[in-house]
C-alpha cells in the first residue's frame, strides 16, 4: 500500500464529508428552532419581561428575521470559522468548545482504552472456551452493559465508591480544587501533570477520572466484547485456523497471530462505532460527574435554548464522527491486505 494512495483516499473522503456536515448543520438548526423555548425569555433581565423588551432582545439576537435568513447568516459565519456566541457564557462558542474539549477527550479516551483492555481479552477468552465460567461472565457483563443506562451506572458507582466506601473523591470536576490544575499544555490533565513532573497532581486527576471513566467503559465493554466473541468464534472454526493447527503451530500463535488478527477486522468497525457513541454518551456522564467537558456544556445550553453552543457541539461531534470513520477505514487497510484504496 503506497502512501500516496492513502493520502488521495483520505482527501476524497474528507471532501465527501462536506455535504454530510452541511446536512448536519441544517438539521440541528431546524431542530433547535422546533424545540419549545424562547431564548429571549431566558435571557431577559427580569422574570417578567415586557413585550417591548422581548422584541428588542429578539432583534438584537437576530431572531426577528425569517428562518432562511437566520440560516443564511449562520452558514456565512460558519464559513468564516465562527460558531457564534454563547448567551450563557458570553464567549464565542469556538473558544468555549476548545477550552472544554480536552476534558471530554481525556475522559473518552481513557474510558475507551479501559473498555478495550477489558473487552478484547474477555471476548477472546469467552470464544476460546465456550460455555466455561468465563463465557458466562462475559454474557452477564454484556447483558448488564447493554441494559443499564450510563447515568444509572454513574450514580450507582458514586453511591458505592464515594458515599459508602469513601474510596473515590468528590464526584465534581477533573481535579481536587485544593491541588489545582497543572500548567496547561495539552489540556489533558494526566499528560500535563506528567509534563509538569507532578505525581501528586497526576494521582489527583487519575482519582477524579476513575469513576466517570469506569462508567463510560462499562457502557462500551458490552458491544466490543460481544463483537470480539462472535468474530473469534467465526474465525476459530474457519479453514485456515484448522490448517494452522494441522501444521502444528503453537497454540498461542494460532490464537493471536492467526485467529485474533483476522477476528479484529469486524471488531475495528465496532470500536469506531463505540468511540463515536461515547462522544454522545459523554453528555450524561459529564452531567452526573460535573465534568467540565463539551457534553455538559451542550446540555446546559439546550436547557436554556442557547442555540449557538448546541449547534456548535453537534457540528464538532459530527466532524469527529467523520474523522473516526475515516480512521477506521484506513486501519482496515493496515490489517487487511485485501482492501485497496482505488478510485
Amino acid at each position: 500500500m503506497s502512501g500516496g494512495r492513502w493520502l488521495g483516499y483520505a482527501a476524497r473522503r474528507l471532501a465527501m464529508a462536506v455535504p454530510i456536515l452541511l446536512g448536519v448543520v441544517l438539521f440541528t438548526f431546524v431542530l433547535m428552532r422546533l424545540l419549545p423555548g424562547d431564548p429571549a425569555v431566558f435571557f431577559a433581565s427580569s422574570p417578567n419581561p415586557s413585550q417591548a423588551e422581548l422584541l428588542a432582545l429578539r432583534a438584537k439576537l437576530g431572531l426577528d428575521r425569517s428562518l432562511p435568513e437566520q440560516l443564511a447568516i449562520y452558514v456565512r459565519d460558519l464559513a468564516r470559522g465562527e460558531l457564534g456566541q454563547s448567551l450563557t457564557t458570553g464567549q464565542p462558542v469556538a473558544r468555549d468548545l476548545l477550552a472544554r474539549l480536552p476534558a471530554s477527550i481525556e475522559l473518552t479516551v481513557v474510558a475507551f482504552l479501559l473498555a478495550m483492555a477489558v473487552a478484547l481479552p474477555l471476548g477472546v477468552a469467552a470464544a476460546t472456551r465456550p460455555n466455561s465460567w468465563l463465557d458466562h461472565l462475559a454474557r452477564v457483563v454484556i447483558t448488564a452493559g447493554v441494559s443499564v443506562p450510563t447515568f444509572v451506572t454513574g450514580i450507582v458507582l458514586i453511591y458505592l465508591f464515594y458515599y459508602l466506601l469513601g474510596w473515590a473523591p468528590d464526584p465534581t470536576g477533573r481535579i481536587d480544587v485544593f491541588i489545582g490544575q497543572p500548567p496547561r499544555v495539552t489540556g489533558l490533565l494526566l499528560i500535563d501533570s506528567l509534563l509538569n513532573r507532578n505525581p501528586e497532581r497526576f494521582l489527583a486527576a487519575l482519582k477524579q477520572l476513575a469513576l466517570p471513566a469506569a462508567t463510560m467503559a462499562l457502557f462500551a465493554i458490552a458491544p466490543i466484547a460481544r463483537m470480539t466473541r462472535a468474530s473469534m468464534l467465526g474465525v476459530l472454526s474457519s479453514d485456515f485456523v484448522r490448517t494452522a493447527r494441522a501444521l502444528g503451530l503453537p497454540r498461542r500463535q494460532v490464537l493471536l497471530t492467526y485467529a485474533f488478527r483476522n477476528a479484529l477486522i469486524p471488531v475495528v468497525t465496532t470500536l469506531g462505532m463505540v468511540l463515536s457513541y461515547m462522544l454522545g454518551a459523554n453528555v450524561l456522564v459529564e452531567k452526573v460527574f460535573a465534568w467540565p467537558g463539551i457534553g455538559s456544556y451542550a446540555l446546559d445550553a439546550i436547557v436554556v435554548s442557547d442555540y449557538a453552543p448546541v449547534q456548535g457541539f453537534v457540528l464538532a461531534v459530527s466532524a469527529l464522527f467523520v474523522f473516526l470513520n475515516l480512521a477506521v477505514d484506513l486501519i482496515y487497510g493496515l490489517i487487511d491486505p485485501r482492501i485497496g484504496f482505488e478510485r
Partner: protein
Amino acid sequence: MSAAGPLLALSGLSLDFVTRGGRVRALDRVGFEIAQGEMLGVVGESGSGKSVTAYAVMDLLEPAARIGGGRLDFRGLDLLGADRARLAALRGQAISMIFQNPRAALNPIRPVGRQLVDVLRAHRPMNRAAAESEAERLLAMVRIPDPARRMMAYPFELSGGLCQRAMIALALACQPALLIADEPTTGLDVTTQAAIMDLLRDLARARGMATLFITHDLALAGDYCDRIAVMHAGQVVECAPTARLLAEPRHPYTRGLLAATPRSGSRIGEIAAVGGALPDLTREDLPPCRYAERCERRRPECDAAPPPLAERAPGHAVACWRAA
C-alpha cells in the same frame, strides 16, 4: 524405525458426534493400514466418514466427537492414548495435512512466505533469515514460478492451483512421514487437478512419504493410488490393491461406484448412479451392514450381524456376507 510394520494402522475405530439432533454414528469399526511410502486412496460419497477419519488421526476433531473404541497406531505410538502435547508435536512434523478449497485453508491476511516461516520455526530452531531462504526453496520445490516474489504474495493474489501448491509446501516443510490429502483437487480445474496430483505423487516418491488420499473420485484414486479403501456410511466396505479393486470389485457398493464412474469412451447412458442414499446416521435402527438398504443382494443374514472386513484374496478385504 522398523520397516516391517505399517506406518499408520487404524483398527476398529468407532466414533459418534453428540448433537442436539441425536447421536450421529459417524464411524463404525473403521480399519486400514498404510505402509511407508505408500499412497492409499480412501474413496466414498460425501458423508461417508473419510474426512472424519482423517481428523481423528490428526486429533483435530470437533468437541462434539466421541471416540467409542478402536486403535490408531502411528509408528507404534498409540495416538488415542497419547497425551495432547505429544500429538501436537507430531502435527506438521511427522503427520501433515492438506485440504480442499486451498484459498480458504491459508491465512488470508498473511503473506504465504510468512506462513511458511511460521511452520518452519514452530518445529525447528531456525533464525528468520534461514527460515526465509528455506521457505523460498520450498516454494520452488512445489514448482511455484518466481518464488522470491511469491514469498510476499497473499492468498487472494494467487490462483487456486498456486494456493494448493503453497499449501503443499506448508505441509511438507518439515518432511512428514505421512501426508493426509483431504480432497486436495476439489474445486480446481481438470488440468490443474492433474498437475497437483502429479506433484503430490512425485514429491511423495522422492521423499518416501506415505499419502492418505481422500477423494470421492474413484477414477482419480485409480490413477494415482497403490491401494484403495472404499468407505460407505462410516464403514470400510472394501480394501484392495488398486488394479485388483478396479478389475474385480467384490462389494456391491464398489461395483456401483465403478458403474457410476465415467471412463474415456463411455457414453452418458452407460453411467449409472448408485441407487438410494446414505442412511441417516442418527437412526437408532441402523442395519448392521449400512449398505443393506441400498443393496440388490440383501438377504436375511445381512440384517443379523455386521459383516466383518475379511480377507477374501491376498490383500483384498471385503465387508459383505455375500462376497464369496
